[in-house]
């Protein structure tokens, strides 16, 4: 008898656990259904966001470790719940930024990116996973952020910020964070923030360096006060050309989160008239005290010439993307396609294949028969490199019958630097070097990898 009672009690307990588990599961599902993420492909008006009147018990528990800070406290937390932040760019800076803002309880996050997730993003864009490849970055980031804190309202914008939509979008947010990857977008975001009176928390990163400034905030300068003229496009290096160590934008994005949280919670940012530079290699931080906003600034000055958004791609002379530009410096007869080059190789045509990429890229992958002399060495006429090339030309001439000019085919990653190298080599041909026929291989090694040898690595 007693044994039967025990057994029944145990069975009941088991069933009760099962019911509790099912109830939990249902509650979670209902919660996630209630907050379905809709990707926006255009800017639409948003409902006004109001701060919570008070913190719930769940809020208190969730945010307890930051509520304990006198710098934040309940007032600051309530301010965060009523704040909206637009994140322009869900990449290496935007990912950690969105993550910390959501975790801290910012009320509304706009997540903007026109791009899709690629494998080469994952080393730094830490909200996206392998399974998100090909997905809109804005949506992938919003989903990841929702998992972290379902109470934050996330609005993914899968669109390109442009002079047509920027003002309408930015006016709807309290704070803007520039996490973009190109110069035209940086000027566009700056001007739109000045015209709509929004603080702009801006960070950037490349290779082993980062910069952080809060623009258009409490009498401080705007981006144009510091940089009235855009850099010539050919001097701008992007992450796909120059590389970046993932943790560097990670650190800068975290700094951005810090300044956004200070402003959104009602404390002041301490970065308003400062430019913080971070050199990750030497582990040097250098804050630079900036001057106030400039009376003669074209957009935030006393008599501005920019009173509405302009064509920023024309202003900067480059496209609003960090994808590599395609240069066109040579005539058709100075270039050959990868297919034509393949037939030269197949027919055992005597030639020199000159790879002009930096050594670090040659170490990643190269064609086995290439001679490597970086473009910079050619441009600087480094004597040992020029001698090496001259030796190879002389050797080739000896192997070739008659007195024809040895052909030199120049290759790089995408076919831009190789065109520059052809121009340099043509100048040297017949003077610093023996006479040669120089041709550029269109599209470089990446064209070789897609069109000739699919086993060749792409990067």
């Amino acid at each position, binding site marked *: 008898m007693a044994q039967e009672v025990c057994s029944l009690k145990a069975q009941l307990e088991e069933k009760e656990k099962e019911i509790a588990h099912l109830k939990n599961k249902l509650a979670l599902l209902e919660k996630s259904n209630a907050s379905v993420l809709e990707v926006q492909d255009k800017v639409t008006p948003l409902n006004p966001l109001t701060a919570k009147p008070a913190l719930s018990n769940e809020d208190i528990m969730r945010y307890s470790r930051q509520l304990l800070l006198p710098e934040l406290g309940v007032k600051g937390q309530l301010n965060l719940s009523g704040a909206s932040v637009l994140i322009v760019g869900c990449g290496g800076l935007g990912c950690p930024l969105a993550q910390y803002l959501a975790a801290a309880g910012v009320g509304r996050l706009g997540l903007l990116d026109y791009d899709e997730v690629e494998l080469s993003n994952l080393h730094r864009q830490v909200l996206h996973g392998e399974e998100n490849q090909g997905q809109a970055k804005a949506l992938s980031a919003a989903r990841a952020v929702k998992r972290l804190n379902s109470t934050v309202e996330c609005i993914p914008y899968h669109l390109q910020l442009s002079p047509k939509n920027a003002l309408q979008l930015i006016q709807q947010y309290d704070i803007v964070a520039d996490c973009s990857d190109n*110069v035209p977008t940086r000027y566009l975001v700056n001007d739109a923030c000045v015209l709509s009176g929004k603080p702009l928390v801006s960070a950037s990163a490349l290779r082993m360096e980062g910069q952080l400034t809060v623009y258009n905030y409490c009498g401080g300068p705007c981006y144009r006060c510091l940089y*009235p003229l855009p850099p*010539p496009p050919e*001097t701008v290096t992007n992450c796909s050309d120059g590389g970046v160590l993932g943790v560097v934008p990670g650190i800068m994005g975290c700094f951005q989160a810090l300044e956004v949280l200070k402003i959104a919670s009602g404390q002041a940012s301490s970065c308003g008239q400062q*430019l913080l*530079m971070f050199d990750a290699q030497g582990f040097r931080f*250098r804050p630079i005290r900036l*001057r106030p906003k400039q009376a003669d600034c074209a957009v935030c000055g006393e008599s501005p010439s920019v009173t509405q958004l302009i064509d920023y791609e024309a202003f900067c002379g480059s496209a609003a993307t960090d994808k590599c530009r395609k240069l066109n410096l040579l005539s058709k007869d100075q270039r050959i396609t990868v297919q034509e080059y393949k037939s030269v190789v197949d027919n055992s045509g005597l030639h020199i294949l000159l790879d002009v990429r930096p050594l670090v890229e040659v170490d990643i992958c190269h064609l086995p028969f290439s001679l490597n002399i970086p473009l910079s060495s050619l441009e600087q006429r480094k004597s040992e490199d020029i001698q090496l090339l001259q030796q190879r030309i002389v050797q080739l001439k000896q192997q070739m019958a008659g007195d024809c000019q040895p052909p030199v085919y120049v290759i790089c990653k995408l076919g831009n630097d190789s065109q520059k190298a052809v121009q340099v080599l043509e100048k040297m041909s017949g003077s610093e070097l023996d006479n040669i026929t120089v041709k550029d291989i269109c599209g470089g090694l990446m064209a070789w990898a897609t069109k000739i040898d699919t086993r060749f690595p792409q990067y």
Partner: protein
Amino acid sequence: MEKLSLPQVTVLYFARSAELTGLREEELVAVPTPISSGDLWALLLRKQPRLVALQSRVILAVRRQYVAIGNQRLSLQDGDEVAVVPPLSGG
């Protein structure tokens, strides 16, 4: 008698300026002082001609303070730090 000597300053190169010069920092000896910020930039250009690519698109900071390249008069002292800061745009 006190010896009169011109100050030695440390120039820090960031971003593109470090690429162009191939240096993260260098010492600049016997810099005339006082000097205008425009003349200081001209001095840097003589030392590192490739910096001309950054002309009018760069920030100069002396003792961690922004200076406009132009007529601003600077009194330099031994050990002062001059930073060359072009914008970074990657992210």
